[in-house]
């Protein structure tokens, strides 16, 4: 595959190195000539000085035959424009953008970027998973359906304790798919109850996460 990467910072450098090792044809663009000098000492002809936002540059590097364009500069507005220009002007099939401000992940998806990756959010999630804390842990995002697969550990003061699932005011767009209690696991029905220290796994619509939180963790927990 021919892959163009915009932005030669730490992320761009390692992305390109990885892609080259996988045998892809890769071109890394960076605006800064000194940075390009350093990068080309190691990556050779895979590096070129140029602005990936500029249509002329992208035309010269054959963007119209690129399979993937990846934008990993430190500025979200540049990453957005690199991907949108690649898509609209050069009809690149797949665009991937780094999102520096995690808030922009949703916006990027809305604006047609195929995949947006937020390093900040990834680190935050890792911390959430590794540090025990009674909260909702997002395990997986089903982006197209706007669904999250989440894990909730039930605190001792949960308002849901001892209640049947059917009687809980769970949001409509939320499905509890598994309860893990100690070594046991329960495939829940409406009759199943929730106990303290249970691990509850659920599929929930992004917008209903807060409602799920209130039902299992109580209104004051956050």
């Amino acid at each position, binding site marked *: 595959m021919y892959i163009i990467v915009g932005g030669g910072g730490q992320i761009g450098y390692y992305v390109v190195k990885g892609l080259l090792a996988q045998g892809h044809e890769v071109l890394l663009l960076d605006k800064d000539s000194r940075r390009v000098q350093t990068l080309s000492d190691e990556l050779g002809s895979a590096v070129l000085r140029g602005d990936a*936002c*500029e*249509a*002329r540059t992208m035309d010269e590097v054959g963007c119209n035959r690129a399979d993937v364009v990846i934008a990993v500069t430190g*500025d*979200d*507005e*540049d990453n*957005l*424009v690199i991907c*949108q*220009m690649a898509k*609209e*002007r050069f009809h690149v099939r797949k665009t991937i953008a780094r999102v520096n*401000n995690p*808030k*922009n992940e949703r*916006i990027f998806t*809305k*604006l047609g970027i195929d995949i947006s990756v937020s390093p900040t959010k990834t680190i935050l999630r890792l911390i959430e998973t590794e540090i025990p804390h009674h909260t909702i842990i997002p395990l997986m995002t089903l982006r197209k359906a706007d669904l999250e697969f989440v894990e909730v550990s039930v605190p001792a003061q949960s308002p849901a304790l001892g209640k049947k699932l059917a009687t809980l005011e769970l949001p409509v767009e939320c499905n509890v798919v598994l309860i893990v209690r100690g070594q046991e696991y329960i495939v829940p029905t409406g009759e199943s109850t929730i106990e303290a220290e249970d691990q509850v796994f659920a599929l929930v619509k992004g917008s209903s996460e807060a409602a799920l939180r209130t039902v299992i963790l109580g209104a004051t927990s956050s």
Partner: protein
Amino acid sequence: MKIIILGCGRVGATLAMMMDRAGHTVTIIDYSSDAFQRLESSFSGQTMMGDGIDEDVLRRAGIEEADVFIAVTNGDNRNIMASQIAMKVFSVRKVICRIYDPIRTEVYQQLGLEVICPTLVGAELFREAIEKSLETSTPNPAAPRTR
């Protein structure tokens, strides 16, 4: 009308003063507080410091009630992103974006943005001025005539 202007440069500040004088409710955003010195002391609108591509900043500026959003920072990409947020996330009725690069102008016009490209507008004005002077100028009597 409630108008939000992003970028308090020469164009942003001048437009803000015009709209303010015309009786509109103007909020102008810039990430540097120094930029607001371009506004005259009679400006009765609001100034806000912040990053114009941060949706929370835009929300605090009242974008949800805004009728018009203008993006005139000195960065094309910043204007493009802010305008798209205004249009697609907040459904502002009228969004106008400044883009210096003619190629980006073309692409984003196709994507439905209303764009003003000062490069094209400026070049066009120069061209018109040159042509007008050619039409109206009297021939230089010293120049040899070919007939």
